[in-house]
């Protein structure tokens, strides 16, 4: 959620990803930047470059030598604190915030948990969950599609995978929002980090005594080069899965429902042609990609004519890349049966979202179940609509009415 920030005059030299107008409607700004200054810069929030063209984003994502993942947050956290062996910050969030070799082997540990086969095993519970949530508001004729639906689904699936109680879903969601959505608010950011950190450390301790069949227990059973993983590393990996598992897909489900609420012809088409769901999901992921990731420049270099310095931050704006008319025909239109759609909503290169199979299943099931029960719906008249942006963009309040 955007807090008051100094108005942006020139987006090419002073961009602000937390600007309220940008969060709500970034598309015209990207269009101007792509044609006038495709690599924008800002001194705000610690300074950063921002890539808006598909080709540049793809090149940077693959250039892991020049662009390190040691800092992936788009907003610099200015929290100063004493070093703490058990703090989340100490180990980061591998593999997302790691370069090879740490990235390579930690990623291999989690990938099988999100394989096609495993994800198929979570589908029934996801569908059942979606149905129960709809049961809760169907008769009232209105709902907050973000809070009462989208937000409730991914958190429960990842809780199951991590073996933590579903009943704490709202707490987990609150911590993740504090970390990502309020990254520019030191107090909230720290509250989120400490909440997740201390909760998961307790869980790690508990599983050492009483292991289960969950991912945290599995990591604790794992040896790397003959030694068990350090608690801090297990903590970082578990925290990553909680953070990435909650906020991103929730945002995608919410944006997709916003699109269908405001484009009734698309909703009707999906109801009439359920076989389109698979290409529709890819298209909605492209058009409303939630995630922007950062990199840090490892040595003075030139990228697409821009002089970059060791330590500079670089934002890979995947959402902007996915609307680049050089890469997509009619880039600003949602075409549910778009046949060629090489989008990078899940990133590209070695950091491709490890949970992409899970996210696709959740988005697809959430839309199927919604449209089955609520085939026609619209934004509630005069209702407030709140978007969050920065690292992850999506609606946070989305009041809709039906039938």
């Amino acid at each position, binding site marked *: 959620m955007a807090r008051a920030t100094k108005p942006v005059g020139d987006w090419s030299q002073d961009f602000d990803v937390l600007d309220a107008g940008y969060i709500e409607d970034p598309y015209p700004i990207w269009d101007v930047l792509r044609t006038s200054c495709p690599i924008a810069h800002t001194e705000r929030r610690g300074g950063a470059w921002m890539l808006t063209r598909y080709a540049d984003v793809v090149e940077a994502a693959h250039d892991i030598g020049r662009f390190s993942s040691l800092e992936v947050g788009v907003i610099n956290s200015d929290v100063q604190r004493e070093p703490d062996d058990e703090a989340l910050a100490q180990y980061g969030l591998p593999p997302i915030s790691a370069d090879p070799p740490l990235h390579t082997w930690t990623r291999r540990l989690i990938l*099988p948990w999100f394989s096609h086969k495993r994800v198929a095993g979570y589908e029934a519970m996801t569908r059942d969950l979606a149905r129960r949530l709809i049961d809760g508001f169907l008769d009232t004729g209105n709902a907050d599609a973000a809070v009462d639906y989208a937000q409730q689904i991914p958190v429960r699936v990842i809780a199951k995978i991590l073996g933590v109680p579903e009943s704490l879903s709202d707490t987990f969601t609150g911590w993740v929002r504090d970390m990502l959505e309020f990254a520019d608010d030191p107090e909230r950011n720290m509250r989120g980090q400490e909440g997740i950190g201390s909760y998961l450390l307790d869980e790690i301790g508990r599983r050492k005594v009483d292991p289960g069949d969950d991912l945290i227990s599995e990591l604790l059973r794992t040896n790397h080069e003959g030694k068990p993983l350090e608690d801090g590393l297990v903590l970082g990996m578990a925290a990553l899965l909680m953070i990435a598992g909650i906020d991103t897909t929730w945002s995608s489900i919410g944006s997709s429902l916003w699109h269908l609420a405001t484009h009734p012809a698309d909703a009707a088409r999906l109801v009439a042609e359920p076989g389109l769901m*698979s290409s529709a999901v890819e298209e909605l992921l492209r058009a409303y990609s939630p995630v922007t990731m950062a990199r840090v420049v490892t040595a003075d270099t030139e990228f697409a004519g821009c002089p970059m310095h060791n330590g500079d931050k670089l934002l890979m704006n995947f959402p902007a890349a996915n609307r680049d008319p050089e890469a997509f025909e009619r880039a600003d239109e949602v075409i549910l049966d778009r046949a060629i759609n*090489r989008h990078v909503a899940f990133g590209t290169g*070695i950091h491709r979202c490890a949970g992409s199979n899970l996210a696709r299943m959740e988005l697809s099931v959430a839309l199927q179940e919604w449209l089955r029960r609520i085939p026609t719906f619209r934004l509630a008249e005069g209702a407030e609509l709140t978007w969050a942006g920065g690292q992850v963009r999506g609606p946070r309040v989305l009041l809709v009415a039906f039938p």
Partner: protein
Amino acid sequence: MKIRVDPHRCQGHARCYALSPELFSVDDYGQSSVIGDGTVPPELEEKAHLAIANCPESAIEELRNQRR
């Protein structure tokens, strides 16, 4: 038509598998590979072209001038 997946380029997006499970398989780590020797039966050629065009890593290629 004959195709292959470059294992060094593939990053496990699984778009090919979603478009054509008849032609591709994906392992537990997301790595995709062609089923069999990659020969595409005529009725699946359109799907193969779609898989090639949708791979975000451009990891699928058509092998040309293959002797049968």
